[in-house]
C-alpha cells in the first residue's frame, strides 16, 4: 500500500514537472526566440493576461469567457446525452441480435465515415440554425463513437462465459444483462470518453454552423480579428473542460468496472 502511495506521488511530481517544462519550452519559443513571426504564438504570460481579461470583458464576440463556456456546455451536453442515449441501445442491439446487425450495419458503416462538418449544409436546411441543429452535429459524432465501442465490447464477450450461463439455464436476455454487458463495461466507458472528446471536437463544427456565443464561436471571432491569444485561450479552455469531464467519467468508471483502481 505504501509503495503504491509513493509511486502515485512520484507520478504526480513527474506530471507537474512535465507541464512546467512544456510551459517553459513554450515561453522560450514564443518570447525568447520568437520562432513564429508577428506574434503568431503569444507567450504563456500573454495567454494568462487574456484569460483574466476575458473573464469580465465581452469584446470581441459579445460575451465573457464564462458566457461562452455556458453556451457551449448546453450544446455539448444536449448532443452528448442524446448521442449516448441513442447510441448505447443501438450498439447493444446490433451486437446482440444478428438480424438487426445485418439491417443497421451497412447504413451505419456508410454514415460513420461522414464527418460532422460535412453535415452542416443539410442540417441548416433541415433543422434551422438553433440549438437542435448544433446538438444534432454533436449527436452524430457521439453516436458513432458510442456505437462502435459498445458493439466491439459486446462482440468480445468470452464465449465460455456465455456457454456457462446458458448451461445454467439463463435466457438470452439474462446472458446479455449478466454476462455480456458487465464484460463490455470497459469498452462502454472507453466509448463514453472517446465520444466526449468527439463532442468537444464537434463544438467547433456546430458553432461554425451558426452561433451567437460559445467557445467555438469565440475562437472563430478571435481568428477573424487576428487574435491568436484569444484563440489559444479558447483552445486551452476546451482542453481543460474536456479533461475535467473525462476525469468525472473515470471516477464513475472506477465505481462500476471491476479491476479499475
Amino acid at each position, binding site marked *: 500500500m505504501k509503495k503504491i502511495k509513493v509511486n502515485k506521488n*512520484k507520478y504526480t511530481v*513527474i506530471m507537474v*514537472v512535465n507541464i512546467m*517544462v512544456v510551459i*517553459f*519550452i513554450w515561453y*522560450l*519559443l514564443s518570447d*525568447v*526566440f*520568437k*520562432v513564429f*513571426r*508577428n*506574434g*503568431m504564438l503569444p507567450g504563456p504570460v500573454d495567454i494568462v493576461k487574456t484569460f483574466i481579461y476575458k473573464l469580465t*470583458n*465581452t*469584446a*470581441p*464576440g*459579445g460575451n465573457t469567457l464564462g458566457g461562452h463556456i455556458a453556451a457551449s456546455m448546453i450544446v455539448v451536453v444536449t448532443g452528448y446525452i442524446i448521442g449516448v442515449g441513442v447510441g448505447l441501445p443501438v450498439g447493444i442491439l446490433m451486437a446482440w441480435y444478428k438480424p438487426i446487425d445485418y439491417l443497421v450495419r451497412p447504413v451505419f458503416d456508410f454514415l460513420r465515415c461522414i464527418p460532422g462538418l460535412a453535415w*452542416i*449544409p443539410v442540417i*441548416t*436546411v433541415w433543422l*434551422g*440554425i438553433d440549438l437542435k441543429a448544433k446538438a444534432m452535429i454533436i449527436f452524430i459524432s457521439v453516436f458513432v463513437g458510442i456505437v462502435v465501442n459498445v458493439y466491439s465490447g459486446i462482440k468480445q464477450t468470452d464465449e465460455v462465459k456465455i456457454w456457462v450461463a446458458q448451461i445454467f439455464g439463463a435466457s438470452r436476455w439474462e446472458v446479455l444483462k449478466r454476462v455480456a454487458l458487465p464484460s463490455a463495461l470497459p469498452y462502454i466507458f472507453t466509448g463514453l470518453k472517446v465520444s466526449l472528446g468527439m463532442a468537444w471536437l464537434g463544438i467547433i463544427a456546430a458553432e*461554425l*454552423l*451558426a*452561433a*451567437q456565443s460559445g467557445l467555438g*464561436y469565440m475562437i*472563430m*471571432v478571435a*481568428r*477573424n*480579428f*487576428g487574435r491568436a491569444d484569444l484563440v489559444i485561450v479558447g483552445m486551452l479552455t476546451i482542453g481543460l473542460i474536456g479533461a475535467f469531464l473525462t476525469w468525472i467519467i473515470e471516477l464513475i468508471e472506477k465505481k462500476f468496472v471491476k479491476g479499475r483502481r
Partner: protein
Amino acid sequence: MNKMKKVMTTLLIATLTVGSVFAQGSKETKLKVGENGNPEIRIGAMAYYLSVPLQVIKDEGLDNKYGFAMDIIDFPSGGPMAEALGAGDWDIGPIGAGGMVAIPRYNAKLIADVETKMDGAWILARPDSDIVKAGNTLANYPDLLGSVATLEDKTMLGTIGNISHYMGLDYLSDFGLGMDDINFIHMETAQIYTAFVAGNGDLACLGSPSAAMKLVKQGYVRVGGLTQQNKSQQDAMLVSDDFYTNHYDLTVNFMKAWYEACDKLNADPAYEFAKVKKFYGEVGRTDFDDNGIQQECDFNTYTDSTTALTNNTGEWMKGLIQFYVDNGSMDKSVIDTLKTNIKSDVVKAALSK
C-alpha cells in the same frame, strides 16, 4: 527519476537548438525566377472583381514588360489570405476587410486603394417582412428600409469580422440601434445564403455581390447596403513588410503594371466585361451569368493612374479599423500601427514620369 532528468535535459537542448536556428531575424526572402526569366512575385488573390487586373497583367504581358513574373495564389476569402500573409506565404495582393488584420497584426503595408466606387454589399430581407413593409423611415438615408420598431429583436445573419458584420452594425446604428438590440448570428457567407433561403433569420448581411444579387433575383428585398448607408466600400493593395523592405523596386514595377491594367479596364466597358468574364471562368466561378457580370462592372470602378494620386490612400481602412476599435473588438494600439503602415510612396513612384 534519472531517466526523466535525461529526457527533460534533451528536450530543453533540442528546444534551444531549434529556437536559435529559427529565431526571428531580419531575413530577406530570395525570389524565384519565373517562366519569363524575371524575378517571381507571389501574388495573393481571390476569385472576385478586385483581382481581375491580374488577368489583364497576364493577358497583356505587362508582367514581362515591367520585369517580373507572377505566381498567383488563390484564397477563398480575406481571413485566410491575411493569415497566409502573416505566415509569409505571399508578397503583394488586393484584399478587402481582411486587411484590417493583416496590417496591424502582420505588419503588412497598405500601398494603394483598389477601387474608387463599389456596390453590391447588401442587407436583404424577405419581401413579406414587416421591415420591408415599414418602408423608408430615415430622411438622411432614402434607400434604407425598416424602422426601430420592426428591427428590434430581429435575427440578423452575418460574418463577424468581415464587411458584412461592419455593414450590419452600421445599418443598425443608422436607426440608433446596436448589436444588443438584435440577435446577430455568425455564419460564413455560403451558410448565410443557404440558411436565409431555408427560412432562417430576418436579415441577411452579404458582403459578396454574387450572393446578394442572387437573392434579389429571387425576390428578396434590399433594405440596406454600404453604399446606401453612405459608407464607402473598397479593397486595398497590401504588400508584406519583407517584400516592401527588400524588394521595393519590384513593388513599384508591379504597381506600374497594375495601373496600366486598371486604365485599360476603366477605358473600355466591353473590354472590362470580357476580362471579368474570362477571369471568373478561369478561377472556376459558376455563380454568375452575363447580366450579373455586367451589373458588377457597372457597380465598380477601379482606381487608375488618374484617380490614384488624388485619393487619400487608406482612408477606408482607417474608418473600418476605427469602427472595430470603438466597439472594443480591436485594441487602440492598432490605429498607430495602421498609420505607420499606410505607404503612399509606392503609388507616387509608380506613377512618376
